[in-house]
């Protein structure tokens, strides 16, 4: 009998839903990053108009190593990503933006004869100078 032309029926799986909900978010993030990096390298190779073998040659590696890198399962070192980025002319690591710097300065906390706490230099002065963030003050 001729069937109606239609989209596939949606199948919902309790088993898959439960497993998806129970995943370790760190492992999931690592898997995702490995795959996204591989995809970016794949795009970089294609943008150069190279095949896997040509890229292997440029990297001084066997094609089987490149296959592994591109499979999205490989845990790259930052040195390797730098090297690949230079060969492909793409940026795989973003380290050029200035990191947030929290500056710490030692303080002396004393208690006088009237049980008053004294901090030197004064906390107010340090805050005005931007030495302490709010979080660091809370740590004090």
């Amino acid at each position, binding site marked *: 009998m001729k*069937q109606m032309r239609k*989209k596939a*029926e949606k199948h919902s799986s309790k088993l*898959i839903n439960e497993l998806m909900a129970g995943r370790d978010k760190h492992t999931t993030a690592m898997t995702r990053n490995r795959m996204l990096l591989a995809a970016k390298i794949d795009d970089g190779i294609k943008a150069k108009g190279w095949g896997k073998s040509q890229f292997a040659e440029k990297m001084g590696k066997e094609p089987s190593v490149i296959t*592994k890198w591109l*499979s999205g399962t490989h845990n790259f070192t930052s040195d390797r990503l730098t090297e690949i980025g230079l060969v492909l002319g793409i940026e795989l690591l973003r380290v050029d933006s200035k990191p947030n710097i929290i500056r710490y300065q030692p303080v002396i906390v004393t208690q006088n004869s009237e049980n008053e706490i004294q901090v030197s230099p004064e906390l107010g002065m340090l805050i005005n100078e931007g030495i302490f963030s709010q979080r660091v003050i809370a740590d004090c």
Partner: protein
Amino acid sequence: MKYKIVGLGEFTGNEATIYSVILNNEDETLFEKFIEENINSFKDEIYFILDRLEVIGNETGAREIFFKLKEGKPGDGVVALYDEPDSNLRLYCIKYGTQIIILGGGGQKPKDIRTLQEDNKLKEENYLLRKISKEITERIKDKRIEFSNFGQELEGELEFEDETDA
């Protein structure tokens, strides 16, 4: 044998549509059976496969680099999802471009075999997907199945029944 292609919403996203197959009006897809068969022995590998399918569906699409190609007959699209290098599992799929995957079953791949034909379970799962791929291809040629939504979905007669059973 009867079977139908069903969509798996858990993995389908903007980049790829993920399907699996239900045989003989059973409750579970081939992919769910694969999970059940292996979750106790290879839990980490199963989680890894779920993670990868989610990324493929939502972010990268089914790029060739993520699959071991030519696991079936030439041009039939039967592939295996790459997993961790020291993993024990093989999951077979049919891949149409980067936007459609049909998940089949698979099993444990013993380290001491070179070809899937050396393992009965892998051979059975792989040959089932080869058969399904062949029948889908015939329907695509006959325009009984078409690619819709800019190549991201299958549409048409997605239920199959062997003529000997009909």
